[in-house]
């Protein structure tokens, strides 16, 4: 049995007198879908941004495959196989959907110098088409991403995170603002990607922040509940559902 893919140990972050995250530890195993839930202001996003190198934690360590990645920049993290999506839409509006997908992985091919002479699609055309078909966005593949509907852009956004076959993907509210009828589809897609994607087609791991409880319970293997910057519980969906403390603090009210 191999060790955890992602390990967060004693993560702390305060803003002045306000403690956003106070000593959070958890592990994500290879191939696991790990959900993070909690009320607004519970420190989910701060935790997420610390792991992703957007902000520097006050204390604690973050390890990826046993290597310390604390304090690395988003760029360095991506180069080590960490992909992400954003809470708000973040596509390249003027590029076509297909180019959005290609640019999402091209920097993992060759060197800066060799890319100057590489073909326009960096040899990623087939991979992009594969994801375009999987996400059902073939009919808009050549349109500028900025001209699509919100739901379609969200799909493009998610697909981009998987183009470089990352070992770990952090998804920040993948269902936020999406039409409820599409939520089931996203869940199915993520399950498929969990099995198919990843380096050398090994299953990849996800960390998912989401408010939609049905979605999280259905998708995730394990769930961490955060309240006021602390971990209240970590367990399988069934364990979380049965946890009286969680029910009282979060689900119950």
């Amino acid at each position, binding site marked *: 049995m191999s060790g955890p893919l992602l390990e967060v140990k004693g993560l702390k972050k305060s803003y002045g007198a306000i403690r956003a995250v106070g000593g959070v530890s958890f592990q994500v195993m290879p191939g696991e879908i790990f959900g993070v839930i909690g009320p607004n202001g519970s420190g989910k996003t701060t935790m997420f941004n610390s792991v992703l190198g957007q902000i520097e934690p006050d204390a604690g360590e973050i390890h990826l495959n046993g290597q310390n990645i604390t304090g690395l920049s988003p760029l360095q993290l991506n180069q080590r196989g960490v992909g992400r999506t954003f809470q708000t839409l973040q596509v390249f509006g003027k590029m076509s959907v297909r180019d959005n997908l290609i*640019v999402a992985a091209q920097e993992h091919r060759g060197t800066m110098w060799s890319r*100057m002479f590489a073909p326009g699609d960096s040899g990623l055309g087939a991979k992009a088409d594969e994801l375009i078909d999987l996400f059902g966005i073939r009919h808009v593949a050549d349109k500028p991403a900025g001209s699509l509907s919100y739901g379609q852009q969200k799909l493009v956004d998610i697909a981009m995170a998987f183009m470089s076959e990352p070992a770990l993907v952090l998804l920040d509210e993948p269902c936020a603002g999406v039409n409820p009828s599409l939520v089931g589809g996203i869940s199915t897609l993520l399950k498929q990607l969990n099995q198919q994607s990843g380096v050398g087609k090994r299953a990849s791991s996800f960390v998912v922040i989401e408010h939609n409880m049905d979605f999280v319970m259905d998708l995730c293997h394990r769930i961490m509940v955060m309240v006021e910057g602390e971990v209240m519980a970590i367990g399988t969906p069934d364990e979380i559902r049965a946890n009286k403390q969680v029910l009282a603090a979060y689900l119950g009210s």
Partner: protein
Amino acid sequence: MKKQSAIIFTSVALLALLVAPHFLKSYGVYLLTYWLVFILAAMGLNLTVGYAGQKSLGHAAFFGIGAYTVAIMMKAGFSFWLGLPAAAAICFVTGILVGFPALRVQTIYLAFATLGFNTAAWLVMRNEEQYTGGTFGINNIARPELFGLSLDGALAYYYFTLGVTIVFGLLLFGLLRSPWGKAFTALRDNPIRAESLGVDVRNYTLLSFAIGAVYAGVAGALFASLVQFIDPAPFGVGQSIMMYLMVVIGGPGYFFGPVVGAAVGVVLPEWLRFAQDWYLFVFGSAVVLLMIWLPDGLLSIPDRIRARRESREASAARAAAVTAAAANAGKGSGA
């Protein structure tokens, strides 16, 4: 379809550029050469501003650095063919240095910073008389020879400039088609997202400045030999702003935008010199109107028409679908 028409358009334009000078007097040939020089400079700025989204208001400084490098080196007895690569190299390095502010500040702050750089460069050109001749400038700059052929004549120098412009145009075209082009566009559209996808924002930002600066430097070198006299005047902040306007008027991020922009920005006013005040008045007003009606520049017109047609077709299709549905419903209730 779009590709074909682009190829046809480009070939016709090239043919016209090859033949045109034979029907023009030497002033006409001079103007055409002048145009090419500014196309080359604006192409570089289009990379920095239009593709990579770095709001640079200091491009004329690179243009000036290129011109002064060649002029000073030629006065010191070096060949133009040594001066040209030196101009390009100096601009490349300066471009990287000027790019650093862009890593700290963006949009209008970056525009301010580059504008400041331009003012500083201009002050040096004006004040360091022992090198630049100050406001008196440097005159009698010679034109080069190529393989023993003198490029002294207006026509010969025109074809030389055309050749350089085409070569650099093709290089830029190739660069923009390579993964670099997508990386620059990603940087422009959303730098934070780009970084999270492995795009090295720092390298691409600096290189977008450096490569753009090389184009300006080469253009400046050609300019020095074309006009054969340089002083600090054409390399000030006003020229930078004009170059920025050329890119914006033509259409930032459109490959041929600088061709149109340079025509409107320098060739027309030069040609209409007798009515220059009127021209600039109309030009300024036109820029205001263009921003209001066509914020993406003149070359966005075809895209606009296409978008409008598509939305009209889409609404027509919707209307047809509604009518058909209504007709079906009518049949259904009738049966």
